[in-house]
C-alpha cells in the first residue's frame, strides 16, 4: 500500500475519532448520571460531566441491605463472582473436550451432534423456562448456585464448541502425528499440544462463558428465591422499577457490573480478533 496523503489521513482519523466519540458518548452520559447526586444527572444537558460531583449513588448501591439487615451487595457480588468463575471453568472443560473430539475424530453422531448444537441456538429461551425449573427442582438444584452454574455452562457450550472446533481445525496435524510416533497418548496430545496452541480461542471461550454468567438475569431471577442468593444483574434490574426509576443508582450499579467485563475485553482484545474467526476463514 502507498503512503497516505496528509489530507487522507486527516479525513480518516477525523471520521474514526467522530465515530469513536459517538460510540462512547452514551457511556459518558451514564458516568455523568452515576456521579451526580441522586437522580439529578438524568437531564437533557449534553455536557458529559456532572455539574456537581458525588459518590452518593455508588455508596447507596454498595451499602444496600435487605430488610433483615443483611449486606446484600456484598453477598450478591460474591455470588456473581463464584457463579461466573465456576461457569467459566466448567464451560471451558466441557467445550474444549467436545470441540477436540469434533475436530479430530470421525465418529457416528458427529455430524448430528454438531448440527444439534447449531440448532439449539434457535430454541427460544422462554420455551425452556418452565421445564428447566422442573428439572432443576427434580435434581434438587433449585435456589442453589450450582444449578445456575450448570445451566450457564451448558448454554454457553454450542457457540464455544463451534468456535473452538474451527480453531482446532487450523492446527496442522503433523504435530500430532510426530507426537504419536513418540508414543504420546490421545489425551497427552489434547493437553500438551492442542490446548497450548489454542490459547487465543480458549481465552475467548473463557471470556464468553464468564460474560454469560456475569450478565444474565432472567434465569437468575427465576431460579433463585432469596435476595441473598441473587446475582448483581438482578439487583440492577430492581432499580428500574415499573413505577419509578432510580436512574442514579441504576447508572452506578451498571458501571460496577460492566467494569469487570470491559476490563476483560481490553485484556483479551488481541485474542478476540484471532480466536473468534480463525476457524471460519480456513476454507
Amino acid at each position, binding site marked *: *500500500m502507498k503512503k497516505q496523503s496528509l489530507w487522507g489521513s486527516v479525513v*480518516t*482519523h477525523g471520521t*474514526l475519532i467522530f465515530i*469513536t466519540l459517538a*460510540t462512547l458518548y*452514551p*457511556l459518558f*452520559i451514564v458516568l455523568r448520571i452515576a456521579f451526580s447526586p441522586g437522580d439529578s444527572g438524568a437531564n*437533557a444537558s*449534553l455536557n458529559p460531566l456532572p455539574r456537581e460531583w458525588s459518590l452518593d449513588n455508588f455508596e447507596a448501591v454498595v451499602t444496600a441491605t435487605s430488610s433483615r439487615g443483611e449486606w446484600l451487595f456484598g453477598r450478591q457480588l460474591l455470588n456473581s463472582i463464584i457463579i461466573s468463575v465456576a461457569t467459566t471453568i466448567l464451560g471451558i472443560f*466441557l*467445550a474444549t473436550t*467436545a470441540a*477436540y*473430539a469434533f475436530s479430530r*475424530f470421525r*465418529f*457416528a*453422531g458427529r455430524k*448430528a*451432534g*454438531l448440527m*444439534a448444537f*447449531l*440448532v*439449539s*441456538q*434457535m*430454541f*427460544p*429461551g*422462554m*420455551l*425452556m423456562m*418452565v*421445564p*428447566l425449573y422442573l*428439572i432443576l*427442582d427434580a435434581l434438587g438444584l433449585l435456589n442453589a448456585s450450582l444449578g445456575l452454574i450448570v445451566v450457564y455452562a*451448558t*448454554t454457553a*457450550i454450542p457457540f464455544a464448541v*463451534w468456535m473452538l472446533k474451527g480453531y482446532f481445525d487450523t492446527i496442522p496435524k503433523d504435530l500430532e502425528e510426530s507426537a504419536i510416533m513418540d508414543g504420546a497418548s490421545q489425551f497427552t496430545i*489434547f493437553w500438551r499440544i492442542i490446548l497450548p496452541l489454542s490459547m487465543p480461542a480458549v481465552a475467548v471461550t473463557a471470556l464468553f462463558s464468564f460474560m454469560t454468567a456475569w450478565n444474565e*438475569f432472567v434465569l437468575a431471577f427465576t431460579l433463585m428465591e432469596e435476595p441473598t442468593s441473587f446475582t448483581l*444483574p438482578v439487583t440492577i434490574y430492581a432499580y428500574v422499577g415499573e413505577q419509578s*426509576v432510580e*436512574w442514579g443508582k441504576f447508572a452506578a450499579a*451498571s458501571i460496577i*457490573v460492566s467494569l469487570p467485563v*470491559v476490563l476483560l475485553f481490553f485484556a483479551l482484545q488481541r485474542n*478476540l*480478533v*484471532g480466536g*473468534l*474467526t*480463525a476457524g*471460519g*476463514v480456513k476454507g
Partner: protein
Amino acid sequence: MSERVAAAPERRLYVRIADAVALTLVIVTVGGAAVGLTRWQDAHTFRKIVEQRVGVAADQLAAAVVAGGPAAAKVGLDKAASVHVVTSGGTDDFGIAVGSVVAVEWIQDPLAKPIDATVFAQDLLNRSAELDDYHTKKQPIPPDRRFAAADFSDDDDPSHAGVALFAAVAPVIKDGVYLGLVRVSERVIKPAPSVSTAMVWIGILLALALGFALSFVPKPAPKTEAKKGVKVPVGERLKAFVTPERLAFAGAAIVSIVVVLLGQSFGLVFWTALMAGVAGLLGGPGFASVVRGVREKPGVYLYVFPAMIGMIVLVFIPFAMGVALAFFSDGEFTGLSNFKEILVPSDTAHTTFYSTTGFTVLWTVSNVVLHVGIGVSLALVLNRENLRLKSLYRVLLVVPWAVPNYITALIWKSLFNPSFGAVNGFLDVLGLEPVNWLGPGSSFASNYIAALTTNTWLGFPFMMVVTLGALQSIPKDLYEAADIDGATRFQKFWKVTLPLLKPALVPAIILGVIWTFNMFNVIYLVTGGAPENETNILVTEAYYAFKVLNRFGLAAAYSILIFVILLLYGWMQNRMTRATEGAFE
C-alpha cells in the same frame, strides 16, 4: 453370521454394564421427564380444583352479602376456613364505617394460628382498592388477582407439613354499585403426588434391568449393500428393524406409560411418552450407530459425553417438554387450539401474528444490514497497515459489546426519554423540535428508530471483530497480484476482499439473524411494544403470553413458531451459501 461369532468375545461384562447404563440413562431421562410433568400436572389440577371451590364459595358469599348484609357471611360455608368481608370506598349501605373489616370469622380451621388482624386487614384493603379499580374500568378481575395460594409445606412449623392455603376474592356489587369485597380462604392438606418416589426408583430399576437384558440381544449384522432387484424377505427386514436400541426406546415409552397407569394420571405424560416412543423408532437407527460407535471406540466419545449429557439434560429435554406443553392449556390437552389462537387473526386485537412476523423480519433485516455495513466498513478502515493508533480505536469501538445488553437497552431508553433524554437535548442544540420518542402518544416510527439505534450500537462490534479477524488472514500477495494487474480499489474489494470474507461473514450473519430475531431485551425494555404492540416482535409476544396472561401453552406455541421460522431460514441460508459445509468434512 461369522461376524457375529467373531464379535462375541469382545462383549465382556463391563461392555454389557456400560451398555446397560447408557440405555438406562436414556430411559431414565425420558421417564424422569414424564414423572416431572406428572407432578407438575398434579399440582396444577389440584390447584384448579381448590381454586374453583373457593371461587364458588366467594361468589356465593358475595351474593349472600348483597341479599342479607354482612351477617350472611357466617351462613352455609362449611368448606371455608375463614371468611372476611371488607368494605372499600363507595356507599355505606350496611351502616358500616368505610374501610373497616366487617367480619373475620374462623369457621373451621384446625390449623388456624393467631394472625395480626391489622396487617391482614390492610392487605385486604389494598387488594380491595385494586379490585375497585377493575370495577370502575369495567374489566373482569384477572385470575391471578382473584386467587391466592400460599404453600406452608416449607416453613418451620411441623403442623404445616403438606398444607396449603387457598383464597379467592369476589366483589360485592349491589345495584351496580361496588360496595367492597369478600374473601374466602381454605386450608387444605395437599394430596401426595400420584407418582411417588418409590415408583420412580422401581422405574429406574426396571429400566436398568431392561437395559441389561437388551445388552444380550446380539448385534445386528453390518449393513450389506442391498442389490437392486433382490427382494429382502419380510422376516429379515423385521429382524433388521428390531435393534436393541429401538427396543430400548420402545421400552422407555412402555415404562413411562406403566408409570402413568400406576399413577392414574394421563394427559401430558401419555403424550410425552408417545412422543418419546415415536422419536425413538424414527431416531433409532442413528442412535444405534452411536451406541455401536461407543462400543467400538469409547475413548472418542469420552470427550463428547460431558458436554452432550449437559446439553441433553438442560437444553434438549427442556425443549422437548416445552414442545409438548404447547398442546396444553391450563394443564389440559387442547390439541392445536393454542396454535389456532395465534394463527387465526381475531377481530379485537390491533396486531396479528402476521403483522408481528412482518415487523420482526423488518427489525431483523434492518439491524443485520446496519451491523454488517458498519462493522465491515470500520474493519476495512482499521485494517489499513499504516494507520496509527489503530489498536486504540479497536479497543474503544468494542466497548458496546462488553456492556450487558439489558443495561445498554436501559441506557438508551434514558437517552431517548422525551423530557430529560440527551437525544432531545441534541435536537435542541441543532434547533429542531423535540420528539416524543417513547411512551404514551409516541409514533411507530419513533419507537422503531429508538430500538434500532439501540440494537445497532449493541451489535456492530461483533461484525467488526469477525471481519477484522478474516481480513488479517487474507494473504497480502493477492493484493500485490491485483495491483500488478492494474485493479482499481473497488475491484480489489469486490473481487478479492469480499469473496474471502464470505466464509467468516456468513456464519456470523446467520448467528446475527438468530440473535436479533430473538432480541427480547431491547424491544421489551426500550419500546415495550408501543404504540399498541406495533413494535412487538414474536419473542416479546411470547413473553406477554407467559408472564402477563400466565398461559404457558400459548407462549410455548409462539416459541415453536419462532423456532420453525428460524429453522427454515437457517436451512435456506445454508443451502444457498453452503456456510456449514466445510465444518463437516
